[in-house]
């Protein structure tokens, strides 16, 4: 997917856009901060890389500190020196790093695209694509969805919407007032997530009783993300058909509120 997207360099000294003005945005979320000590950071990164490879192959519940140490070619003691909190701290730090990396990649994809409509299209395709291409995420969803889904359902999703909207809002400032940009960014995020969970091809023509109901709370069930939840054509169609008219309505409402 995303063949039309230029594969841009991910060099670290290149900030795609200034996020600091965005309401509620923590710069650390999208842009990796400066590590305190390079050697320490390297070792921690090595542990996190190893943990990520393990999770992508075996999942979170079957990954122990010993597994990660072996994968990283480090002793257990060394590993605890970098992560005194053990497995829990490693997993939490890994998730946080993946989240930052996700937005960092997304930012790099958007770098240099000046046209607002194109920014939205590219952001939607890339945001969905990066989710379904993430191997560790795919493994967890397929084999241990009960570890992830409670955190991104109902009120849990509000936090995800907040982070994603804070990331994307600055890309819409100029087209929209900052508060409207924040609102529109959340809305674009909703549309992307809706497609990831319900790709158009998975939506039945009408309600039908499932042929086989398997309780998905059970351990060992599989749950696969569609490889292309949002095609480029569909993203363009959504933006042109619904999002741009909606944004014009936002602008008109803001203008009439001011006058």
């Amino acid at each position: 997917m995303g063949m039309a997207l230029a594969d841009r360099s991910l060099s670290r000294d290149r900030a795609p856009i200034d996020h600091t003005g965005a309401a509620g945005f923590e710069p650390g979320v999208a842009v990796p901060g400066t590590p305190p000590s390079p050697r320490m950071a390297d070792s921690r990164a090595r542990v996190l890389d190893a943990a990520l490879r393990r999770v992508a192959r075996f999942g979170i519940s079957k990954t122990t500190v010993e597994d990660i140490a072996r994968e990283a070619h480090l002793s257990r003691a060394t590993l605890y020196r970098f992560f005194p909190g053990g497995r829990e701290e490693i997993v939490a730090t890994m998730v946080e790093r993946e989240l930052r990396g996700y937005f960092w990649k997304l930012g790099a994809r958007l770098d240099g695209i000046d046209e607002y409509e194109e920014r939205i299209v590219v952001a939607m395709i890339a945001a969905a694509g990066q989710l379904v291409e993430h191997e560790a995420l795919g493994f967890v969803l397929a084999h241990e969805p009960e570890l992830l889904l409670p955190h991104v359902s109902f009120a849990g999703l509000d936090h995800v919407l907040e982070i994603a909207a804070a990331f994307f809002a600055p890309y819409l400032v100029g087209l929209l007032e900052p508060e409207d940009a924040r609102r529109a960014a959340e809305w674009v995020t909703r549309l992307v997530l809706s497609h990831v969970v319900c790709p158009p091809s998975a939506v039945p023509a009408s309600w039908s009783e499932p042929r086989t109901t398997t309780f998905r709370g059970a351990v060992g069930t599989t749950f696969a993300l569609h490889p292309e939840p949002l095609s480029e054509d569909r993203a363009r169609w959504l933006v042109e058909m619904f999002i741009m008219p909606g944004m014009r309505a936002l602008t008109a409402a803001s203008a009439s509120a001011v006058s």
Partner: protein
Amino acid sequence: MAPIVVGVPRTVTDTRTRLLEATYDCIARDGLGATSLEDAARSAGVSRATLYRYFPGGREELLGAVITWETLRFFLRLADAVADAPDLESLLVSGIIFAHRSIAEHEVLQRILGTEPELLTPQLTVDAPRVLSLLQTFFVGRFGDHELRNGLSPSDAAEYVARMTLSFIASPGRWDLSDTEQVRRLVRSEILAGVTP
């Protein structure tokens, strides 16, 4: 009752439904994890063999079916609540407000989300495309002759409206969905702006 959702039997009180109701009562009382096949059979007043006849997959199939069934009932209640709305905008506004309140006040749902969400959210996620289709079917018949923008088919418009509505109902984000004015604003720009002329 109006045939709001095509193809969904509304008044069936067959054995299967009775079994689902009885199992739901167990879940409401004891939670998902603690409800066994024996509990469900006892509550329904049937034998284990009868339960297996209707749910060959046993406990797991039964619990999955109950979640799907209660999800459907939730949306049928929602459809009934907004059936008299005079136009699409007021239907969406009152529907989102009603759904938001119903989720907050759904005791069984809230208790499970608080204590054993890992047993519920995977099934709800699997069911999401089916729920989306339910909402889409509901909205398709709701567009008046001149209410759709040129070039937009009722089916495409309904799918978009269904996606956005479902998203807001499940996770309000920054919106206060008990505030009618806020909901009206979001319905106008995020949901209807691209759909209506």
